[in-house]
């Protein structure tokens, strides 16, 4: 979470809207269902709509969750950015630059 926060460091704020307490039954069920999941694989399309750009940028990617502390996240086809989580450590791999580093 924290790695994400500075992402918008130049931007200003608007108040959060308040609402009536929602019915959380579907969420409870969804979380209960997740107990049965051990691994997940999926393709995804990431769409970034940035304030500075006139149109969003869409990039394909792939993700593997291998338990609560294992993750592989690839962005680009072929992958240009790869993030791997092992325990509490995140590694960033940039194949084009032939570089990797710990986040």
């Amino acid at each position, binding site marked *: 979470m924290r790695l994400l*926060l500075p992402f*918008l460091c130049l931007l200003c704020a608007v108040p959060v809207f308040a609402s009536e307490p929602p019915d959380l039954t579907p969420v409870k069920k969804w979380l209960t269902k997740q107990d049965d999941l051990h691994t997940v694989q999926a393709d995804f399309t990431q769409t970034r*709509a940035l304030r500075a750009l006139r149109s969003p940028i869409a990039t394909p990617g792939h993700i*593997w969750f291998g338990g609560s502390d294992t993750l592989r996240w690839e962005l680009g086809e072929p992958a240009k950015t790869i993030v791997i989580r092992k325990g509490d450590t995140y590694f960033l791999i940039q194949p084009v630059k032939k570089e990797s580093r710990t986040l």
Partner: protein
Amino acid sequence: MGFAMMNFPIARDFADFNRQFETLAVSVADNRCHLEILPRDAQAKKLLEAIKIDFETVSGHLLSFELATRDGSSMRSDFTNVRLNPEDRPARVRLRFHRLRDRRWKELGFAGSGSSSRWCCSPARGLSHISFNVDILKLLPTHLPQVKGLSLFLKHFAQPNELIVTIEAATPEAADTAADALSEAFGKRPDLVQRAVARAPWEKRPADLSELLAYLVLNQPPEKIRALVASLSSDQADATLQASVEKLGESISPQEVALLSYDPYNLAGVLNESGFLSGNGQQSEFSSADGTFRIVYVVSPHGFVNYKAAIAWVKQIRQLAHGTVRDPAIHLGFTGEPAFVADISGSMEWDMMSSGFVTLLVIALIFWLCYRRARPLFDLQAMLVLIFTLSLAAAGLFLNQLTVIGVGCAAIMIGLSVDYGYFVYQRSISHHGTVGELQRQCVRNIAWTSGTTAAVFFALNFSSLPGLSQLGNLVGIGVVIGAIVMLTVYARLTMRFHRREEARPPSVVERLFATPGFWQKGAVLATAIVIFLLGALLVKGPPPPDFSARTLRPRNSEAYTALDRIYARLTDDRDMLSLVIAGKDEGEALKRLRTAEASLAAAEAHGDVKSFRTALPLWPVAINQRANLPLLAPLAGEISRLRERAIAGGFKDEAFVLDEAIFRQWAAWATAPTPIWPDNETSRWIFRRVASKADGQFLALGMVTPMPGHEDELTARVQSDGTWLVSWNQLGRELRHVIPREFKHVIMALSGIVIVLLALAFRSLRAVGLFVVTTALVLACLAGAMSLLGMSWNFFNLAALLLLLGTGTDYSILLLLALTRNGGNAPAAQRELGLVICLCACSASSGFGTISWANHVGLASLGQTCALGLIIDALISLFLLPKVWTLIHKRTAG
């Protein structure tokens, strides 16, 4: 993006989910649930508007995950081909990490938040004190590299007018509100506060960063700049913009995305290798990562004339702050230079006044107990005040400031000067002649004792320790003035009193000292004590040395407490070393910076350094600036074309604002003399703890994290002309080597002087020998007593040895002179001087004893050591020395 929060599952259970997130909306339609949540983390709330999640209600498949930010941007992942619990777990997940080429993750961005927290919390913070003078470095040898480097560091980077207000609250919201309230309240008092900064200046005015970016690019090697200029040419501009768009779609660096969004031509791309464009999250010099600890920097509108002005200003700020933040759950702290000045000067003033006052009181009590005479007592007290005033006035002729050691001298001077008063009074009791005759009787004893004492103290000028020199001069002057005042004025007053008053029977104490049994029992007791202390020395060994920074700081100081909180909550850099580089101009400093950078890189490869950061990336490179300006300045003329291409390349008009400001800045610098320094408020804020140009000196700073135990090698490797690697801990290590050697030399020199003087006074080798043995025995017993009490040697109580050499020896000198005068008759000598020496010892040890509770740890240890040493000295001189004298003379006679 967003992988960092894509935990699987998103929460352990519903309770965990509720703990982490606030649910904004839930809606279900067509077997699809749309969930909008917001992290409860305050920092996240500032940036995120919502996290939007879509999932299938039946299968639980995740359909989409979106981070919506408060500026209207979003990052959404739509999932397809989701497979739950697939059997073919990808081998790629179990990647072989050891093959990865791990690059050092350079922390902290050009925005400076984290780096400035290091600069700001630098050891630097911690310690430069004032002009009472509380600057501990003023006491230490100036030729030591650590002292030189730290002095420069404090002089140029300590921010003497900047108070740091710390805010600790239970929640980030409360801390945030308090910081804003304080900032506003301070802002309303321009008479009191020039500037109160609760947030980084670039948060308010991001456009200000354009000057710094323009400057940093200008500093780069010309070949890079030529490539940059080429990338902006008509035929390459579109490709450059396309590359930026691709990067915006792929980058996971928040700083890179944020910057590139407003830098479509990637002008800052040339800085990547310099490590500016990386970051470490929300921790900054303004806030802890969790937001519950905040800092407001408060700058005084003017410098402080003296420590009293600093005390008054800090008091006003404190009152204003407490009046603004009334919530008892929010804790405010005050640190930084003015707070240290206020704390330490205030306590020094109190220490000096209280110890002087208590010493006078104790002396009065002792005198009254022994003599029961009010008038001579008042006269004596008046003399002491006169001596103290005259001494300080005389010292003021050549000393501008009193150091912490000088403060301790107030009590010492009184304690020493009263000795002569006691002696004069004791002799006057049985004197029936004129004042002149009394003065002649006393002058020999007082001249020798005060002479040796003053000589010893003045000889401290030979020491390379300025603190000791000051102490020596102050006490030396005080002793001479004390002797003169007691002989000339007090002798006259006592004789006048005795002529008016009828003789009274001796007091209980006087009768006690005239009893032979008292001396017999005293000798037995003194022998037992000496044997006990020597035994303790043998068993426990000598006291260990302690030259750590602990002894250099006050016992209780709110400023230190607040600083410790900063160490605990923001950055603890006490194990870091500060790289201080000085040069007569930018070029010389740059050359030294490069050399130091190379040495540190080699040390890092060698395993002596964990990490380091220098001011090199920020330092102006005049030669590059001169070569680059002709290439960069003309770009301002192409702003229209570049803006058009950026818009055509997919960027909005507002995305070009930063690049445009940079182009215009280069044009503005086109005719400026080099080297160019950035000068707006944001740049000054970032540079204030990294680079300094004042008094014709250019200084650059760096922070080095050494491998534990490699500090000495590293310092030796990096330190060179104009380059220092310093820290308070390293200073302690250096002192550990230097001070004992220094003291050894000084003590040997002083001992030589004392022995020569005594040889002249006694004209007896045996008496001199006896004096040497007595002094050695006193020192051995003192070491035993210190070991027994768990005390250690430090810079301050080593000075106590010198004081003992100057003061304690008086007792043996007086007694040896009395023995010579009385033809070796020990009981007669004891009767004559026993009471006087006892009074002297009690007064002097009470003088030293009163500084035992001084707020300054080192000064207090000086007081304790001296008080202990004087009591031991008096015991040995009074009870054992005459016995040994008699024994030696009997044997000789036999």
